[in-house]
């Protein structure tokens, strides 16, 4: 095992300057990880406050409804745009995709550095919304006319989306070129890691759909500050134009998050089971690319209650239900990889297994929501809120944690496993169930999303308890998660400096990032000789 003293190779340059000016994909990956975890911390704090406020009827903890709405805005926008997307396609893709394909860096390292700085500027801009007196209160969806007529500052939302969108588009171009042109000699398409496939699929979605979101929010900006009327019906505009444009991007954005998360747990499960991915080609072509193909024609299921014509609501009911086909094929690949495996359990594998539960629960609870006649009632209730937290937020966050534990020895030459890791895993896993199961139950009875006050439901009993009882349970759950996340963060920081030393390939993986690089990999990743693979090589060949 080699332990390089400086991964950038400029011994004379001070460390802070090395990081600030770096174009190394691994350092940029770590910077994405730090930035996205910081966003997760702040947005998580907002979630704790939101849950606390809902624990009892009436207003106890926030100072005004506007402040509550501001927290809701920040929680949603930051979790999706600054934690999940950059955590998965920023951190994981940056650090590991070039290693997995045997490349010495990405195709355009300087553009990569530009992407990370755009991301950091976006985070700073988003955090400024706590300092300005008129921070945005328009939810992460920013629907007009409210976002146009509100006294709050919609431009901060628009410019944050612009910066992150620009950052993602540059990243998408960069990684697509990297995978197409910089694979190790001899590496065919059917020999790529599943994580590489899911990442390029996510970047194809970003490249195609982000411009639509950017256009939608730019028109919002023009309407609010330049007096145009794109979304103003009194002058010939249409309020639904925005929602169509917004969800045309934002539904595929779910797969930008979901796909790399699936990729990570496939890597973890295959390695810990010492089995090849079950039905690899089915997972890649009809599975991953099937999702990309259908993902762009289902967005109306976010507009089931907006009075869109019946034919499109029913048409997209069918396309939405058909998403179960590619997702089902990916699920079979996950399950099949367990079959006849030789399973070793560690923290990464525990998170991956919990993701099997989350994909099942989150995926299946989406089926009622695919059916517009059921969604006429379920839309905008905490049922929806629980569903998308399980499938998008928790599944993807837990997959990211699985990836962090799995790759921790690669990044630091130390294990992050240990009693603290196990304890924080169980707190997180139990906590999320205690938090979100009650929301399914009261959501089905009509508990609205984005409410701090639910007095009108005070007389409604579900299974012998009122809504407040369920909200109280959910709030206790959020405290369990908070404890778990704090302990986990302490564990990561401790393990990075003083964790148990790990060998170069502690899990016995066959993937290039483990077999051909030091931990952590030095500048240029692979030492003197370029990686070359033959046609029999596979990242999943164990016997």
């Amino acid at each position, binding site marked *: 095992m080699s332990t390089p003293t400086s991964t950038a190779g400029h011994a004379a340059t001070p460390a802070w300057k090395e990081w600030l000016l770096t174009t190394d994909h691994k350092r940029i990956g770590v910077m994405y990880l730090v930035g996205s975890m910081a966003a997760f911390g702040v947005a998580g704090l907002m979630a704790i406050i939101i849950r606390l406020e809902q624990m009892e009827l009436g207003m106890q903890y926030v100072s005004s*409804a506007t402040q509550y*709405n501001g927290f809701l805005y920040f929680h949603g926008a930051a979790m999706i745009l600054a934690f999940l997307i950059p955590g998965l396609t920023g951190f994981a893709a940056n650090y590991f995709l070039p290693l997995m394909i045997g490349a010495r860096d990405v195709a355009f390292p300087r553009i990569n550095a530009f992407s990370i700085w755009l991301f950091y500027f976006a985070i700073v801009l988003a955090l400024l919304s706590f300092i300005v007196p008129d921070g945005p209160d328009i*939810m992460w969806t920013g*629907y007009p*006319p*409210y976002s146009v*007529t509100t006294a709050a500052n919609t431009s901060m939302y628009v410019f944050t989306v612009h910066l992150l969108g620009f950052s993602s588009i540059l990243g998408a171009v960069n990684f697509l070129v990297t995978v197409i042109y910089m694979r190790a000699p001899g590496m065919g398409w059917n020999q790529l890691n599943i994580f590489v496939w899911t990442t390029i699929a996510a970047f194809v979605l970003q490249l195609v759909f982000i411009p639509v979101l950017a256009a939608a929010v730019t028109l919002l900006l023009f309407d609010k500050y330049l007096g145009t009327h794109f979304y103003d*019906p*009194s002058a010939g505009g*249409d*309020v*639904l134009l925005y929602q169509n444009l917004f969800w045309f991007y934002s539904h595929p954005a779910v797969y930008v998050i979901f796909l790399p998360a699936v990729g990570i747990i496939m890597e973890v499960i295959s390695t810990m*089971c*010492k089995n*090849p991915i*079950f039905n690899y080609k*089915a997972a890649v072509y*009809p599975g991953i690319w099937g999702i990309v193909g259908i993902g762009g024609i289902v967005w109306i299921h976010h507009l089931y*209650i*907006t*009075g869109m014509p*019946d034919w499109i*609501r*029913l*048409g997209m*009911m*069918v396309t939405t*239900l058909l998403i179960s*086909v590619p997702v089902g*094929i990916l*699920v079979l690949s996950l*399950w*099949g*990889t367990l*079959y*006849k*495996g*030789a*399973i*070793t359990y560690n923290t990464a594998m525990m998170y991956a297994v919990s993701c*099997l*539960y989350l994909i*099942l*629960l989150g995926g*299946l*609870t989406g*089926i*009622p929501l695919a*059916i517009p*006649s*059921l969604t*006429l*009632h379920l*839309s*905008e*209730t905490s049922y929806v809120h629980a569903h998308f937290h399980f499938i998008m937020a928790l599944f993807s966050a837990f997959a990211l944690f699985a990836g962090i534990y799995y790759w921790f020895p690669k990044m630091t030459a130390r294990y992050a496993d240990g009693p603290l890791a196990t304890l924080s895993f169980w707190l997180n896993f139990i906590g999320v169930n205690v938090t979100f199961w009650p929301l399914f139950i009261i959501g089905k*009875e009509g508990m*609205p999303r984005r409410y701090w006050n639910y007095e009108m439901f005070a007389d409604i009993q579900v299974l012998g308890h009122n809504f407040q009882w369920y909200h109280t349970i959910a709030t206790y759950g959020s405290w369990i998660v908070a404890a778990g996340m704090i302990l986990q963060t302490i564990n990561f920081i401790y393990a990075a400096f003083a964790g148990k030393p790990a060998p170069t390939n502690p899990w016995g993986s066959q993937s290039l990032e483990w077999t051909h690089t030091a931990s952590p990999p030095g500048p240029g990743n692979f030492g003197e000789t370029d990686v070359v693979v033959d046609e029999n090589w596979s990242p999943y060949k*164990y*016997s």
Partner: protein
Amino acid sequence: MRKLTSALTGMVSTVLLSSQAYAGNGLAVPNESWEVLWHEVIIDITVIGVIMAALAVWWLLKYRATSPGQVGTAKELTAVQAISWALIPASIFMADDFFLAANGWTVWNDYRRVPENAMEVKVTAYQWYFEFEYPDGTTTEELVMPHNQPVVLRMTSEDVIHSMGLPSYRVKEDIMPGRITYIYLNPVDIKETFVQCAEFCGQDHSQMVAPVRVVPQAAFDSWLAQAAEG
């Protein structure tokens, strides 16, 4: 595709007459159809969930490594096996999808087909209250419906987007400026409930609520007369 699905609708709705609920006035009661469909879908997803979860737990326990360095023994799939493992599950998933879609469509028709004798109430939403206008021009801030009289709400907004959320009727539809949307209600039960705004509309979003009552025809007539004077 639409032909196929509508053929399936016909087939399925003859099998599942229970998913269409009719009450005293012989018209569809959407919220009762909703409950039937909900239970059907919950059974469907519970069966899938339990099978998959049991399989995962069984394999996760059974295939634990017994010695370090042990590797999995799964055989590589042949081309026929690989294609079968994609096509057969895909066909099963699609069959279930079309089954659910057909049932969903049937219930959709219960919600969206407005009978000709429906009483029209115009709803206008403002930040942060609802206004109801009856056929005789009377405007009120509560929605009162005569028992067994089908009602259609024609809705629009004067400012931002709101939503007519009627949880006890298992329905909601957005109320937007520049657009008119509708909700069909069949009030077959005499009860007092409420409408709440279900689309984020700003500061007092979670305070935007109005009473909804179903009363006998005679009580409705006297209530409307009183409201017209007041």
